[in-house]
């Protein structure tokens, strides 16, 4: 019945009208094959074709019969009322392409869903359709093309509006930074506490290690000696005579840290083998007034006094022993029967020897 009505009322006006009229005929003939008619209709506008074909397939998939085809409805009504596209476009203040796109339900040519719904409502009002709301409801909420931007989910929308990079804002990495700083602080604290035993370590090394260390350290020190050569000719002389001794003279700090160098330690190592109920004897002969302080392995001070010139002192202690001897030039020390040369341990300016004995 509709076919007849349309055929009767068709007004051969503009070419747009005639084109669409043909289409109507085609649709009515094979109304179920929507896909086949659409490309034929859009032959004149090639750019339409792909999207149009996709859309029609989509509508078939989702069951086009269930949702009213608002574009077709508007188109039919327009033909029935004898209006052409140009007239409608003028009344709705839209372009003719947009009206065509609405009737063809070609969403790629139309703006976001809200506008499309508005257009359909206005169009339906213009045609004084009674099922306006039904038609508007049929308009999909989003276009297939809308992906990120016009998402229905507000949080996704706002994510699209968030800055990709913002200076001064750490976010998750900011927390990582805080954690890293705290960790570094802890590690540094740990190292600080580790460091003191490490400094002490050379005193407690056994023979084998000492040999290795002295070798490596003397290698390092040799470089230092070369550097200081022009400055102190006496040092260079002594270095040529006794390399380990010069180390002590030129690098007192190094000597303080690593006093257990080969010359004194080698004899110590020999005598250490003799069991002496764990204790070793020290014999001092003072040719000058000298202040002496000795700590034993337990950290207990076993001797701390000023010894006057010309006296002698003998003391026993459990090695390793840590000694501080003032006026070292005026003191001769015998450790377990062996003479210990204090010169390598003596700091140049204040003549104080600090070292340990095993």
């Amino acid at each position, binding site marked *: 019945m509709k076919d007849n009505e349309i055929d009767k009322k068709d007004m051969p006006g503009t070419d747009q009208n005639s084109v669409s009229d043909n289409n109507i005929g085609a649709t009515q003939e094979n109304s179920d094959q929507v896909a086949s008619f659409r490309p034929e209709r859009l032959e004149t506008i090639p750019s339409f074709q792909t999207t149009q074909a996709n859309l029609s397939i989509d509508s078939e998939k989702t069951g086009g019969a269930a949702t009213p085809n608002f574009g077709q409805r508007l188109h039919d009504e327009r033909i029935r009322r004898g209006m052409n596209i140009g007239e409608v476009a003028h009344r*709705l*203040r*839209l*372009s003719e392409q947009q009206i065509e796109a609405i009737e063809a339900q070609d969403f790629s040519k139309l*703006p*976001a*869903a*809200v*506008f499309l*719904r*508005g*257009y359909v*409502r*206005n169009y339906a009002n213009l045609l004084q359709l009674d099922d306006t709301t039904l038609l*508007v409801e049929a308009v999909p909420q989003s276009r297939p093309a*809308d992906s990120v*931007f*016009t998402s229905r989910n*507000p*949080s996704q*929308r*706002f*994510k*699209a*509006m*968030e*800055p990709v990079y*913002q200076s001064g*804002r750490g976010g998750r990495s900011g927390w990582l930074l805080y954690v890293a700083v705290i960790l570094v602080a802890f590690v540094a604290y740990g190292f600080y506490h580790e460091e003191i035993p490490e400094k002490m370590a050379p005193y407690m090394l056994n023979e084998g290690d000492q040999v290795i260390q002295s070798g490596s350290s003397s290698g390092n020190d040799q470089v230092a000696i070369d550097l200081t050569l022009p400055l102190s000719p006496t040092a260079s002389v002594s270095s040529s005579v006794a390399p380990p001794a010069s180390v002590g003279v030129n690098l007192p700090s190094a000597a303080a840290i690593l006093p257990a160098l080969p010359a004194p330690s080698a004899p110590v190592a020999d005598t250490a083998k003799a069991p002496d109920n764990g204790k070793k004897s020290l014999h001092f002969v003072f040719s000058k007034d000298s202040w002496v302080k000795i700590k034993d392995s337990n950290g207990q001070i076993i001797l701390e006094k000023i010894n006057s010139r010309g006296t002698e002192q003998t003391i026993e202690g459990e090695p390793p022993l840590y000694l501080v001897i003032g006026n070292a030039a005026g003191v001769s020390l015998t450790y377990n029967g062996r003479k210990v040369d204090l010169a390598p341990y003596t700091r140049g300016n204040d003549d104080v020897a600090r070292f340990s004995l095993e």
Partner: protein
Amino acid sequence: MFNFLSNNFLGSYFSTDMAVDLGTANTLIYVRGHGIVLNEPSVVAIRHEGGPGGKRMILQVGQAAKQMLGRTPGNITAIRPMKDGVIADFTVTEQMLKQFIRKAHPPRLFSANPRIVISVPCGSTQVERRAIREAAYGAGARKVELIEEPMAAALGADLPVETPTGCMVVDIGGGTTEVAVISLGGVVYSNSVRVGGDRFDEAIINYIRRNYGIMIGEVTAEIIKSEIGSAYPGSEVREIEVKGRNLAEGIPRSFTISSNEILEALAEPLNSIVSAVKTALEQTPPELGSDIAEMGMVMTGGGALLRDIDRLIMEETGLSVIIADDPLTCVVRGAGMALDSIDHPVGIFARDY
């Protein structure tokens, strides 16, 4: 750090975030997860006790108070504390908001105060914005964010505000008409004229008094507007019979008024709106202007329900005009969407300092 937890993490479990459209005519509250839970007229009925300078107490708010509007005895006043989109009476507004929030979010044990997004007219001054913010804090909000009404309206109308295309919104509210062009989540141009539904009512009252010599009330004027009011001459002429007090005789009389007369009465406020829209189009950068010309503009707010107002603007500007779905609730729905971004730096909230 603890502050961070209590503000966002724990707070979201124990409090309800809400969006409020504190409008001149109606106040709407949207609660996250519940939708629009309150839609009441912004009217407060106050009872005075003990003569002038005596105690004032809130008698009713909302719908019940609106029914009292213009029908109150001496010791009760029904007032609308919002005027032209902004606060006219601070204390009363604060109390009204407090009552509405209590209705929407009944206080429970261990419930934290809500975080609130409130819409403000884009033309409001710093003082007016601060007043609204303070009123919300006074009503028990924990955190208050302000959002400009056209921005909220555009969000609520589902416009693609975050895309690099120009969207034009015309929001005709009770007290103000907001015109804005929005692109990339920000307001490119906005203007607010203090013409809205209230001005339409006033225009109708004045017209009838002038031409008929009959005094009608605001409520009657609103009924006339919503029944037969139109913004553009249509094909059919509709009539309504209303009653008012004859000024000459002093006796209530009944009379009939037609839609064409109302159209004439509304000409002046409608012209203001049209010129605001035209100014906005003039001020819009050309690229955005071309987007608007292609897509048209969107109307929201109660004023958009005036018959043929889209037609009027369409004819005046030559651009397509569409009316958003459910225009009355666009602003509060948009503010509700903005609630979701209260913790994100997307910059859609207005600054008042």
